[in-house]
């Protein structure tokens, strides 16, 4: 049974109220726009890669609490990580959100497992995944991405093609 009590935990509400790394980097090396046409969420992700490490990352946009908190916590999680490690987190987060990865199992998500609750709310999975989709797009120099059609996380692998 869908239980949003598990989803709207204090940590998510806090990141929604005070999103970290919120803004646009002036000296970004990579950027991408993410759009979820279902609910109108739109975010812009900018990041600075130095020696293949995420040196700085910002997100800005208009979105629901789930998307905003996911973006905020994502920026904290990937900052200082190598591109490869960041991509692995993208994969793990997606698997967590669609219920393929157990929140209590091994993995590198840490506090991000707070989003495990979205798996019971299929319409909200895309909200949580949008920032990660956008990060993946930016790392692969794709200018914009969406949560629909071929890029739909419910149907297609996140890394497919790009």
């Amino acid at each position, binding site marked *: 049974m869908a239980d949003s009590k598990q989803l709207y935990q204090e940590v998510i509400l806090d990141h929604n109220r005070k999103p970290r790394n919120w803004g646009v980097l002036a000296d970004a090396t990579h950027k991408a726009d993410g759009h979820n046409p*279902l609910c109108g969420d739109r975010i812009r992700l900018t990041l600075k890669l130095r020696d293949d490490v995420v040196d700085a990352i910002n997100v800005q946009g208009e*979105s629901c609490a789930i998307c905003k908190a996911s973006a905020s916590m994502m920026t904290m999680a990937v900052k200082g990580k190598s591109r490869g490690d960041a991509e692995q987190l993208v994969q793990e987060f997606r698997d967590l959100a669609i219920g393929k990865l157990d929140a209590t199992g091994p993995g590198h998500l840490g506090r991000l497992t707070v989003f495990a609750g979205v798996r019971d*709310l299929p319409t909200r999975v895309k909200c949580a995944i949008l920032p990660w989709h956008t990060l993946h797009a930016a790392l692969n120099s794709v200018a914009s991405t969406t949560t629909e059609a071929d890029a739909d996380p419910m149907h297609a692998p996140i890394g497919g093609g790009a």
Partner: protein
Amino acid sequence: MNALHSSLKRAQSDGLARIRDDFPILKLRVNGRPLVFLDNAASSQMPQPVIDRWVRYQTSQHANIHRAVHHLSEVATAEYEGARKKLAAFINAREEREVIFTSGTTDAINLVAHGYGRRFIGAGDEIVLTTLEHHSNIVPWQMVAEEKGATIRVVPVNDRGELIFEEYLRLLGPRTKLVGVGHVSNALGTVNPVREMIQAAHEKGVPVLVDGAQAVPHMKLDVQALDCDFYAFSGHKMFGPTGIGVLYGKAEWLEKMQPYKGGGDMILSVTFEKTTYNVPPHKFEAGTPPIAAAITLGAAADYLAGVGFDLIHAHETDLLDYATDQVNRLPDVRIIGTAEKKAAVLSFVVDGVHPHDVGTLLNEEGVAIRTGHHCAQPVMQRFGIPATSRASFAFYNTHAEVDALVAGIKRVQKVFR
């Protein structure tokens, strides 16, 4: 006066209790709470007599129509054409052949875009639509406009979500070939002055298509009084099944229009040299139609007529007034769409909370509303918001359900405080 009013109310609520009992789905519990279904503008629920009609057809009346000479085919044909007759009476069409069964409102509008638009709209012509339109009354016309080199002109709305009539009059020009307007806005609930708009268009010889998807469940429709050229609506928004809808078209137009789909049943004769089309409505009903759905829609029309639009209107007005008042009392909640004439639709935004979060938290309380852009993105753009939360009522909703909605919004605000 007061005594009359309260006795009327009592009679209404007595009637209402009986009406609710007709809808088995309303007894469901969701997330441990009684279901509060306030998403009727997206799709409404089906009463038992209408469900029974579907079952009876499939149990004892089904065969293909208009074809075989055997018993069941004759029964099915009679019931299908009987449903057409019921729908014609329901909307007060002059003739039964003016009622075309489609798969829904979208299909009906596409039929007109193809059959009328591709035939009568050319380069440099104009199609007048309004800011309030659902995407289904925008995109088919954009496709025609692009193909033919025509232009779309858009009637603006004021801050209450009402069409600006003077602007509409200004947009009607010598190149206007069609006006497309929703009877009731799905996103805001605004009831548009379609009678006056049709009159003004007709003075310039311009036909009008009315998208009535959101009007039919709420008000008595009389296409002759409206004098509309086309009127489209869906079965599943008027307590019938999905997959069925109606296009009403004036016979004079239907005769001139080209068919939309080719196939069986829409022809008189076929050779590889030449095909002669059947007459309306059959000309527009290629292939085996959704027979069960059409017959069941006939039962839904009967059911609505039985409840009576006077009662429906009185109760829904009461509910909307009550809900509007209750929501207006909440701090930091803004109602979007405050037209003087509204159907029972309440779109709102909660400051600092995205509608999707509102919807998810209300769902936890068993309250079903719609959140998003409601397939009306131009409306959202007009009001500078990405989305709204929308509660939409049917005659089976109650004041207690409005209370559940309001309590749910209060909880949302508490969670997001």
